[in-house]
C-alpha cells in the first residue's frame, strides 16, 4: 500500500495535467459543448409539453417553430425536440457504455500482455491484430444484421470493434514501465502479480487510457449513428440520433429538418468529445507542442 502511494507519481501528474487541460481553449470549448448537450438531453424532456413517443397524425411534418414544436415534428407527428433529447440520452449512454467496456477489456488485455510479455503477449496481441484486421464497418454490420438490435447489443457490438486501440496503448506503456524501480520493489515486497499489474502499473498508464477512453466515446457515438442510419442499429420507436436520421433522406426535400436537427446534435457531441480528448492528450503529454 505504502509502496504504491510513494512510488506513484500520480498526484503530481494529475494536478499538472489538470492545469494544462484547463488552459487548453479547445478542450474547454469541448467541455462546454458536451455539458450543455448533456444537460439539454436530461433536463429538456421535462420542460417540453410533448412525449417522445406520442403519435399525432394530424400534426405530421410540422416545420420547426410551428405548433409549439421547436424542432418540428416527424412523419408520425411526434415532437422532434422530445425525441432528440431522449435519443441523446440513449446515444450518449451507448457511447459511455462502449467506453467502459472497451477501456476495461483493452486495459486488461494490455496490462496482462505488457506485464508477462513472451508467449502470453504474443497470443494476446495476435488476437488484437486479428480484430484490427477486421474492417470495423464490416464486422459491425455483419453482427448487427443478425442480432436483435437494442441499445445493449449495439453497445456490445461497437465495443467489440473498439477495445484494440486501448490494448495496444496500455501494452506499450506497461512494457516500458515493468522494469522500473518501483516495480522491482513491489516484487521484492512479495506483492502478487495481480496487485502489481492493477495497482502499480495500470495507474501509471492512466493518462493515455483517459485520452483513448474519451476518443472512444466520440467514436462510439459516430458508429451508432452509422449503423442506425443504415437501419441495422437501434430500432424505432426507441429514438437514437442515428435512427432519427434513418429515413430522413426520403423527406430531404419536403422536411429537411428531419435530417438537419439530429445531425447537428451528433456533430456537436462528437466534436465536443474529440476536443476534450485532444486537450487531455496535450495535458498528459509534456512533450507535445500546442497542437
Amino acid at each position, binding site marked *: 500500500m505504502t509502496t504504491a502511494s510513494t512510488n506513484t507519481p500520480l498526484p503530481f501528474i494529475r494536478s499538472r495535467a489538470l492545469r494544462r487541460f484547463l488552459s487548453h481553449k479547445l478542450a474547454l470549448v469541448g467541455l462546454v459543448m458536451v455539458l450543455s448537450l448533456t444537460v439539454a438531453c436530461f433536463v429538456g424532456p421535462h420542460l417540453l409539453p410533448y412525449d417522445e*413517443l*406520442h*403519435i399525432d*397524425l394530424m400534426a*405530421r411534418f410540422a416545420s420547426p417553430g410551428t405548433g409549439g414544436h421547436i424542432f418540428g415534428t416527424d*412523419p*408520425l407527428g411526434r415532437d422532434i425536440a422530445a425525441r432528440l433529447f431522449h435519443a441523446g440520452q440513449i446515444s450518449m449512454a451507448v457511447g459511455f457504455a462502449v467506453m467502459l467496456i472497451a477501456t476495461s477489456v483493452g486495459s486488461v488485455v494490455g496490462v496482462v500482455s505488457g506485464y508477462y510479455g513472451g508467449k502470453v503477449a504474443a497470443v494476446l496481441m495476435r488476437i488484437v491484430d486479428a480484430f484490427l484486421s477486421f474492417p470495423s464497418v464490416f464486422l459491425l454490420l455483419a453482427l*448487427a*444484421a*443478425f442480432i*436483435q*438490435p437494442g441499445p445493449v447489443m449495439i453497445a456490445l457490438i461497437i465495443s467489440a470493434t473498439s477495445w484494440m486501440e486501448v490494448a495496444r496503448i496500455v501494452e506499450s506503456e506497461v512494457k516500458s514501465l515493468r522494469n522500473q524501480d518501483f516495480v522491482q520493489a513491489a516484487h521484492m515486497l512479495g506483492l502478487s502479480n495481480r496487485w502489481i499489474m492493477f495497482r502499480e502499473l495500470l495507474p501509471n498508464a492512466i493518462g493515455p487510457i483517459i485520452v483513448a477512453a474519451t476518443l472512444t466515446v466520440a467514436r462510439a457515438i459516430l458508429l451508432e449513428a452509422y449503423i442506425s442510419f443504415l*437501419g*441495422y442499429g437501434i*430500432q*424505432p*420507436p426507441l429514438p437514437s440520433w442515428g435512427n432519427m436520421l*434513418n*429515413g430522413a*433522406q*426520403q*423527406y*430531404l*426535400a*419536403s422536411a429537411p429538418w428531419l435530417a438537419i436537427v439530429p445531425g447537428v446534435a451528433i456533430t456537436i457531441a462528437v466534436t465536443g468529445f474529440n476536443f476534450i480528448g485532444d486537450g487531455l492528450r496535450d495535458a498528459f503529454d509534456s512533450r507535445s507542442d500546442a497542437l
Partner: protein
Amino acid sequence: MTDENKNSAHLNRRQALMMMGAAGAAGLMGPMAIGRDSAFAANADASGQLVLAFSQEPTVFNPLMPHIEVDEGLHYAVYDTLFDFDPEGEFFANLAAEVPTVTNGGISADGLNWRLKLKEGVMWHDGTPFTAEDVKFSLELLLDPDFRSFRSTGYKLMQEITVVSDTELTWTMSAPFAPMAAILASTFIVPKHAFDGVADKNNTVLNTAPIGTGPFKFKTRMAGDHIELEANETYHLDGPFLQTLIMKYVPDLNVMYTQFKSGDIDVVGLQWITPDHLAEAKGLAGKVVQVTGAATFESVGFNMMRPQFQDPAVRKALYMAIDKTSIINALYYGVPSPTETYMPSQSYYFNPDLPKHEFSIEKANALLDEVGWAKGSDGIRAKDGVRLAFSNSTTAGNHLREQAQQFIQQTFAMIGVEMEIKNLPPAVMWGDYWMNSEFDSVVVGLNALAGADPDTSDYFMSTMSPVRGGSGQNTFAYQNPKVDELLIKGAANFVPEERKAIYQEIQAVIREDLPFLPMFQYAVIKGWKDDVTGPAPNVNNRIDSWNVRDWART
C-alpha cells in the same frame, strides 16, 4: 384521377381457369386470339431506347431457379411462357400454338390428360430451333433432385411427359389440379441445349448470359447498375417495338423519382413512386402517372398457436382498435384501398359482401370487458393468467410499415393491449422466424395467389403449417376444418361459377375467424413518359415488364 385509374384495372369477369372448364363452362370460352398472335412480325420497326428502372437489381437470370419479383422483370423480356394471363385474367397463347382447353381437346374432361401443341418455327436467341424437347426438359428440370428449383407444387403431379413431335407433347396428371394452368402460365421455358454436357445444372450459361425465345436478347450487364437488352428481330409474337431496353437499378426510391422527373428514366418500375410523391407526380408535365391495384394485401397476422390469440373476441377487438382510415389516408396518402380479405378486388372470385371494418376504441374496450379480459394494475388486460401482451415484427427498414406499426401500437395501448415492436433484418425476419411461426404477430404484405387462380391452400390449409408439422406457407398456423374442406373442394373443381361460390365462402369464414387483420390491398403508383405506350396494369403478374413486347415510343 386516382379512383378512375384504380377502376380501369377493374374487370367484369374473371375467367381464370375457364379453359380448364368441363363441358358446363365450355360455352364461356372466349376466343383466345387477342390480336397478339397475328404473325411473325418482321420487327423492322423496332426502334429507340427505353430505360425501365427497378429499385432492386435483377440478378437471377435462370427463371427456374429461386428468384424474387424483380428477377421476373428480366425473365419476361428474355424468355417466354407457354401461355400467360392478360389483365382480364384470361389466357393468351405464347409459345403454345393454342391454349389447351377441354373444347379444343387439349385437356380431357376429367382434367387428367393434357395435349399441348406448340408454335412452329420459334427460334432461341442463339438460332437453335425451339422444340417440344425444351418444354419437356424445363418441366422435368423443376423436379430434378440436383437442380435448385423455385417451385415443385403442381409439377409433382405431372407424369409421363411425352414428346409426340417437335411441336406437340402430352402428359397425364396423377390427380385433378385446377391451379395447374396458372402455374404453367408463370413457368418460363429454358433451352435444353444450354444444359448439354453441363456437370452442375445450377451453374450454366443461363446464369450470366441468358438465352430465351422472348422479345429481347440479353446484351450486357453492368453489375450493380444496369442490364442492356436488344430487340429480338425474329420474335414470334408482335413486337418488340424498341431497339434497346435498359433495366436500370436505382436502389433509392427518392433518387429514382428524381431521375424520373428529370427524364433520365422513362418508366418507373418495381417499388415505383412513393405515396408521398403522388400529388406532385400527378402534376408533372409530359408524364403519365397511374395508381394501379396489386394482388398483395397488407395485414396484421397472428401466430394462432399463441395463448393470447385463442379467444376470437380478442382478435375482433384488436381489429376494431386499428385505425385503418388514418393509416391509409395519412401514412399511405390514400393510395391503397381498404380490404376485408386476401383476395384482390379485381379478382373474379372476390367476395364483396364481407362485413365492413369499424374503428372504435369504445366498442373494442366494451367487447373485451364483456368477455372477461380485465385490466390489471399495469393497465394491461389479462384473463386466466394470460396477459394481452405480445410482440409484433416486420422487416426493419420498411419505413412506411414501421410507421403504421407504431401507430397501431398506440391505438392497441388504448384498449389495454401491450404490443412490443420487435423488427428484424429481412434475412432473419423471413427465415425460420417466419416459416416456423416463431413470432407472436407480424405486419406483412402477402400475395397468396398464383396468377389469377384463387387457390390459397398453401397459406390457409391446416396441413400446410410448418409449425403444425406441415410443409406449406401457413405460417399463421391457421386451422379451421371447414376451410380445409372447402380448399380441397375448390382445387379439384374446374367450373368457375362453382369455384366462385367456394372461394367466396372461404373468404367469409376467414373474415369471421380473423387469423389476420386485413388492412388494405396494395396499390402502386406507376409512371412513364407520355411518349411511351404499352405499360399496362396486370394484377395477375408481379412485374411491370409482363408485356414489354408491346412497349413502344411514339
